Structures are given as C-alpha cells and as structure tokens.
C-alpha cells in the first residue's frame, strides 16, 4: 500500500503530512479526485462548525420569529429554500445541522476504533500466542457478519432506544466502532507479524529494550502505512451506518438533533404523493459527503499502489526518452 519511499525525511514537516505527500506526488485526474475530495470534506467541516450561522432556522424549529407556524410539506420557496417536511421542519436547516451530527459521529467513531484497533493489532501481532489466536478468530467472525445488524444490536445495548443528542452520537459512534475495530486490527496485526522478525526489531530485543517501547517505537511507527486508506473507508462507512441506524429509528430524535437518515425515513412516505424535497436534499447531502471521503481514499490508494501510480507520467517519460536516444529504453 502506501509506499514509505514517498516520504523524504529531509522535507519540512508540512510536506510530509499524509494527504499533502500524495497531493504533491499525484498527477492528472488522480490529483483532481484528491483535490475534489479534500474540498468537499473541508466544505462539510465548515458547514458543521458554522451550522447555526448558516441555517436560517433551528433543526427543531416549527414556527418563525413572528410566532407563525411553518407550512407542512411546503414546497421550496424564498422563506424555506428547500421546503418543509410533513412535521413542519425546515429542510435546509435540518440538512445543515445534520452535517454537524455526521461530522461528530465520524470523528468519534474513527478516533475510538483506530485507537482500540491499532493497540489490539499491535499487541496481538507482536506478542502472538493464544491471545492472538482468539482475537483473530473473533475479528474474522465479526468481519464476515453484516455490519448493520451488529451496529443495530450494539445501538440497542447503548441507547436502549432513547434519543438524546450526545447519547445518540455516542451510541452511533460506538456501534460503528465495534464493526471497524476488526479491520484496523487485521491490518496492523499483519504488519506487526511481519515486523516482529525484522532485523531492527530483533536487535532492539537483544539490547534488552522493553517490549512496550519496541512496540510503540519500532513496530507501531512502521505499521501505519495503510491506515490513511482504511481511515477514509471507515469514515465513509461511518456516515452510511449512521444514516442506516437513523433510517431504522436508532438515531437521534427530531427534537434532539438533525440526522439525515432519520429525515429520509420520514421522507419515504412523502414520495408517493410526489413530495421530493424532503428526501432528495438529505440524501444528496449523504451522497456528496461519502463521495468526498471516498475520493480521498481512492486517490490515496491509487497513488500509493505502484501498479496504478502515475502511469501517464511514466509513459510520457518513456516516449520522450525514446525520441531523444535509444539508449534510454535499453537502460
């Protein structure tokens, strides 16, 4: 996966940051994809942070400042640019506040699952033994199981069906964590198993370095190559799982917060009567955010994979060399 040779240690720090490295190495439409992804994610981040400033109304607001109730299933108009729902919520405001929920859940889910998955994978892969065997079997079993079903079970356990905002966010994030820990675990464990027998790890062991220091300094530092890629996959899946849970009624209630999946589940019955704005806008919000995250992941994958990287540039190089001298091709 990610090629460590992409990183030159003598470059300044900002040029060695994950996405920046790939951005500088990328060419053609791979770079376009990466830039698009980064821009989309940045946009959502801004919307999430500045939601109260952008949204004209609150996510649970049912009447304007003049005390007059919002119309029900009102079509898009100057007052409600994306219309209103059956319950009388402003669609645009709910979509904007939904970005905040999604970003929060993604951040919590990714941070928690990466921490647990990496620690478990490292310890399990480096130490081996019966603990390793058990963890591998458990991770494989969880991996093969429909993740949404597992997330449903976990979210029943955590929320028990209640729907406060912070409670809902934690419930959704942990449900996603349970599903993703095995993926980080597998990748980091595989790397740790490989590194365990490398010369530099063995020499550290011979010198009597304590195992924890070996793990953190030597194994961990070298086993994070493909983490950015899984991280983006995890993030995009987190958004979809959150929406799925919300759609099934395990998300955040309409008065506690705005959540796109919940709004879509409400919008389902509107479709029959031709009311499209209640469903299309939150849906598109999900799709665009997932697209943005996936674009970053896809291009990171392409750029780091030597089979897929910078083909065009190589081709140009070869043809240019071929034109100037035949020796170039022979060398």
């Amino acid at each position, binding site marked *: 996966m990610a090629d460590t040779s992409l990183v030159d240690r003598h470059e300044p720090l900002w040029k060695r940051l994950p996405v920046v490295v790939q951005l500088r190495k990328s060419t053609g439409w791979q770079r376009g994809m990466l830039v698009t992804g980064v821009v989309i994610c940045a946009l959502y981040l801004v919307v999430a942070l500045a939601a109260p400033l952008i949204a004209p109304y609150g996510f649970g607001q049912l009447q304007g400042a003049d005390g007059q109730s919002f119309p029900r299933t009102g079509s898009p108009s100057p007052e409600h640019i994306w219309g209103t729902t059956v319950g009388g919520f402003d669609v645009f405001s709910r979509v904007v506040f939904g970005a905040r929920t999604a970003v929060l859940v993604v951040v919590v889910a990714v941070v928690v699952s990466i921490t647990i998955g990496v620690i478990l994978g490292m310890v399990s892969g480096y130490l081996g033994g019966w603990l390793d065997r058990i963890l591998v079997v458990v991770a494989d*079993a*969880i991996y093969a199981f429909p993740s949404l079903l597992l997330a449903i079970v976990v979210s029943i*356990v955590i929320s028990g069906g209640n729907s406060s905002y912070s409670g809902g966010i934690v419930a959704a994030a942990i449900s996603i964590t349970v599903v993703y820990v095995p993926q980080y675990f597998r990748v980091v464990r595989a790397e740790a198993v490989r590194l365990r027998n490398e010369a530099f790890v063995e020499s550290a062991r011979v010198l009597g370095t304590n195992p924890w220091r070996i793990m953190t300094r030597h194994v961990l530092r070298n086993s994070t190559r493909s983490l950015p890629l899984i991280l983006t*996959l995890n993030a995009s899946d987190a958004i979809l799982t959150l929406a799925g849970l919300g759609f099934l009624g395990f998300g955040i209630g309409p008065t506690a917060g705005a959540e796109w999946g919940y709004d879509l589940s409400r919008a389902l019955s509107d479709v029959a009567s031709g009311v499209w704005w209640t469903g299309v806008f939150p849906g598109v919000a999900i799709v665009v955010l997932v697209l943005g995250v996936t*674009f970053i992941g896809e291009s990171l994958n392409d750029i780091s994979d030597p089979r897929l990287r910078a083909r065009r540039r190589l081709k140009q190089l070869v043809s240019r060399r071929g034109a100037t001298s035949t020796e170039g091709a022979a060398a």
Partner: protein
Amino acid sequence: MTVIPPEAIESEPTKPQAQRSAKGGGGLGRYVLVRFLLIFPTVFILVTLVFFLMRVIGNPITASVGGRLTPSQLQERLHAAGYDRPVFVQYLEYLGNIVRGDFGTTSTDNRPITEIIVTYGGATAELVFYALIVALLFGIPLGMLAAYVRDKWPDVLFRALAILTYATPVFFGGLLLKLVFSVWLGWLPLGDRASTRVSLILDNIPGATGIYIIDALRTGNAQVIGDVLLHAVLPALTLGLLTAGIFLRLVRANMIGSLGSEYVDAARSRGVRESRLVRTHAFRPALVPIITVMGLQIAMLLGGSVLTETTFGWRGLGFELNQYLSARDFVAVQGIVAMLAVIVAVTNFVVDVVAAFIDPRVRF
C-alpha cells in the same frame, strides 16, 4: 453498510485458519472438512457476542416494556421468562436451545423465531438472489470493459459510477428510483412484493414456498408472473447496484493484473482475437477472487436487505426485523440476528468450497 476495503478486494480474501490447517494434508476432502468445522466457532462467537451484548442492557423484557409495568408485574414477567436466574445459566440454556434449533420466541406476538425465518426467509432469499443477478450483470461486463480501456474516459466513467453506487445509501437509492419510475413515470409499482390480488392467490396455493417467483411460475398464469416480476424490479436494482460497484472494481483490478501478464502477451502474439483474449484468457483467472468475495457480498446483501425491504415494504426477514425493532421486541431481534449469523456462516462455507473446487491454490 459495509463495503470491503480495496485491499481485501484486490488480493484474495484470506481465511487464515482454514488455509493453515489445510496446508498440512492438502486435498479437497480435508479442506472441506476443516472449513466445515470452522463454521462452529464462527457461529459460537457471534451468538455469544449477541447474547452478552443484549444482556448488558439488563434483559429484553425490561428494555421493551419496563416503564409501562408495575415492579411486581415486571418481576412476574421476568420470572416467567427465566430472566431472574444467573446470566451464565441463561447463557448455557440459550446455547443448548440453539443446538436443538430453538432460537427463542418473540415476546410481542409469541411466535417461534424459526417459524418467522421459514415464513419470511424465502422472500429475503428471493430478493438477495435478484440483487446478485443485477450485480453480476452490471458489474462483470462493465468491469471487463473498464480494465480493457483502462485510464480512458469509459474507465473513468465506470469507476465514478461504481463509487457513486457505493456512496448512495440503499434507502436513498430506493427512494430516488421510486420517485422517478413509480411516481413521475408511473411505470412500476411503489412497493410490496405483488399486488393485493396476486398476493392472495400466491399465499393460498397449496404448498406455497413463500418465494413468489417460484409460486407464480407454478400457477402458470402469465399475469401473475408479470405482476411479481414488475414488483421485483426496483428492489432488485436498489440492492443490486450497491454491490455491482464492488464487483466492477474487483473485476477491473483483477483483469488489469491478468491482461498485463505474459501469457496474454503470448496469446496476442499468436494472433488470438482481442475479444477472445479478454473473454477467456484474461477473464477466467480473474473469476476466482470474484467467487471468494461473493461470500462476503451475500452477508452484505443480507444486511442491505433490511434497509431495502423497509424501503419497499418487501415483506421479508429484514422487514420483519424492522417491525420488531420498532416494537422494541429485543428477544425477536436477538433471535433473528443469531439465525442470520448461522445463515451467513453456512453461505460463506458453501462459497469457500466452490472456490476450492475451481482454484486448486485455495486448498493446497
């Protein structure tokens, strides 16, 4: 809503235990046996996990009706269901019941879980089958084409479409298809598995399988068959397109590998036609990883069917699961999820055995 990470797609998914144990003796029979025995720990782990997770909340009865009963009534209900005994005793009993094929009884309407599976399993199996067909019909040809015209505009277009199908939640995809084809164009029905009249006919034929298309074919009535098929189009597309993108990427990545190999160059230099080169020489070896991934995909389709069935009112297992979820009947949820764990484990076993039949590298 899981999508397999690309590194799992592009390299063959590994079943470490099975491979390691099979390495010693080799041989298909031994592989099948080892792989079969591996079903049990998988099911055991998932069932245990679900059981203890559900017990963390206390017990299903308190969680579902706790607030509405007086403490003494609640105690009575708990005692009747045996939830006042030590958790470990309950766990052993639960395992014992599962071994005997008893997955429990729903608490809202007192139906055995196995009965629910038998009644609605057929509908879900039908939907998953349609979805797989859609996924393969779209995924394989487009993936082959994308690999062949690699880096040109059709490739970029197909890959963008693959990402788009992945990024669209099934219920939103379903909602859009419904909006366009049922509401605006009026070509296809909004939901359900068949119109009311046809459902009545199909539910009442003797020895009904619950798989509507089979029952419809048995009636031999063209109108009934047509009605059933029309109702299946949108759900099948919704669920199938989700997976089609994954197949497309998988076929593309593997075909690029095999198209660049030396035997393909050799065949080309012998003057083998390009179309034949793509269809046989490059495609056949790329087929194996597709079959291995299919197992994981079926698990994913089962998960996706919960959302698809809810979107289209397709009365299958996912639809029922959602009903029990909203009724807060957690005994039913636990039972259905445990049962699905068994189904997924068995499906993966079958897929792995098929892969081993086709590719000798898997079993040695």
